């Protein structure tokens, strides 16, 4: 007990950066996890990857214009503009959205890097932006994380039924009068806010993992979007906190540590889920043992009531 206290409590009491880092990890874990569910069910797991690249440009320009407070605004504006540009290019070019995404986000990323190399803003360390630096979370960063993350969670919570309909059947959503284009922009903005929130803890590169892995893990364990978000949230939370402690005690960089814990959760779910590997093997064995033809897991559901 004392040893555990020493491992978990002491760092938080002793080091201010651990307090800040822990709070940031919690917010980031929750926020990214909830969005990852929407990305996974919409089949857009790599959209997070794309937007995180655009966010670099937003961060650089926002910082140059407004200092630390300009970062979130810059990221939001650039992400939404890039999203609009993608929609426009896709509409007017003979290929699908993934191609225009591939073009626009990488070019945006390059522009961000170029501006950064010219202006060399003193407050931004490229390595920290890319890979996170939880040791350097300042109180301004913490505010930024809390505000961006909190906003995202609030919007998802309040508009849950809208997101649920939009992610399942966007055609019907439109037919019912939902302005799906506007929802898409809102979603892009939320993604970029979550990425900004995650800048310090996991960084631009690895935030992509937090925008996929919790949702993918929860997808194997749940059968409704609401419970999927709850489970993903737990996965994100556990990854954030455990990863941060692991980082502190084992001297691993915080971003990789957090993502590795999330990856371990995924592996566990993949093996142990009812529809996962081990469940599948057990089912196959049960089937071959039983003599009746139709005892599959869904047989009962297929029967007329």
């Amino acid at each position, binding site marked *: 007990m004392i040893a555990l206290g020493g491992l978990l409590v002491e760092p938080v009491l002793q080091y201010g950066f651990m307090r800040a880092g822990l709070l940031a990890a919690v917010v980031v874990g929750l926020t990214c996890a909830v969005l990852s569910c929407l990305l996974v069910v919409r089949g857009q797991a790599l959209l997070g990857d794309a937007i995180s690249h655009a966010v670099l440009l937003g961060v650089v320009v926002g910082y140059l214009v407004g200092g630390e407070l300009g970062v979130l605004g810059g990221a939001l504006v650039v992400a939404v503009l890039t999203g609009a540009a993608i929609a426009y290019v896709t509409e007017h070019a003979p290929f699908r959205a993934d191609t225009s995404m591939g073009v626009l986000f990488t070019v945006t990323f390059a522009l961000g890097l170029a501006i950064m190399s010219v202006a060399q803003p003193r407050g931004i360390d490229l390595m920290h932006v890319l890979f996170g630096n939880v040791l350097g979370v300042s109180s301004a960063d913490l505010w930024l994380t809390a505000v961006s993350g909190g906003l995202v969670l609030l919007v998802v919570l309040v508009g849950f039924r809208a997101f649920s*309909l939009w992610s399942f059947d966007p055609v*019907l959503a439109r*037919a*019912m009068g939902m302005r799906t284009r506007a929802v898409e922009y809102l979603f892009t903005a939320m993604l970029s806010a979550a990425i900004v929130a995650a800048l310090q803890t996991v960084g631009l590169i690895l935030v992509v993992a937090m925008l996929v892995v919790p949702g993918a893990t929860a997808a194997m364990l749940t059968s*409704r979007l609401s419970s*999927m978000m709850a489970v993903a949230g737990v996965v994100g939370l556990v990854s954030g906190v455990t990863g941060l402690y692991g980082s502190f005690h084992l001297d691993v960089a915080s971003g990789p540590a957090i993502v590795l814990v999330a990856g371990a959760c995924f592996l566990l779910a993949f093996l142990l889920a009812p529809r996962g590997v081990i469940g599948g093997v057990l089912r196959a064995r049960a089937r071959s043992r039983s003599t009746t033809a139709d005892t599959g897991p869904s047989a009962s559901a297929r029967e*007329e009531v």
Partner: protein
Amino acid sequence: MRSRRAEATPAPDGAGVRLDVAGLHAGYRDRVALEGVDLRVAAGERVGVIGPNGAGKSTLLKCVVGLVRPTRGVVQVEGQPAARRRGRVAYLPQRAQIDWDHPAQVRDVVAMGRYPHRGPVGRLRREDHEAIADALERVDLAGLARVRIAELSGGQQQRTFLARALAQQASVLLLDEPYAGLDAATARVIDRELATVALAGAAVVVVNHDLAGLHRRYDRLAVLSRRLIAAGPPGEVLRGDVLDDAYGRGAVVLAGPDAVPDPRDARSGDPQGPP
């Protein structure tokens, strides 16, 4: 003999009209899909839309729900521009660009029918839950409310969507080929429920690709081939010359009251029997 002029105005005298399509033109980038289509559907009426492939049947429905923007013409729902009455129209798309692995249970999908009533924000209320339960009951899915949609059979999936449309309690129902590839039991549930909502005062428009069961299912038919070729009661419209106009000469051979025997009508083959 009724005039074959393309004017689908039966009796309705303005007041009872739920859906009013006037002079509708629509097209896609490289082709014209609809040319000057008029269609009025009164409360309590069931209208079947028939016509060959590419006749614009689905486009007609999409114009009504705002998925395709007409190039000319007016669509009114309950006497108002359709854009202001979106939630009053229930739409069952052709099955469908849905990802059946989506994490949703049957009750979740049906609950989406309540979106127009409740809007994007806020929780469902008791009347919503009642409408959802009632809709599930009517399509015989109450026992499967908590089943994940990936586990459903094709017929059950279609009934789930029908339940969603019923839960919406709309005044206009548009269904795009709801009978395609379904078992007899599900087809009968659809028939029964469409008759019920029509009786309760809704206007029902169904795109029917095949020419089976038309007499039984619809009060009126609209024969579409980019233009409205003919409209009227099935007995008046299902004539050789009309169908030649729509489908091309000799493409359809009429035999008896229904153009084609309906395999789904073979009720003796169904152990459960009609409800």
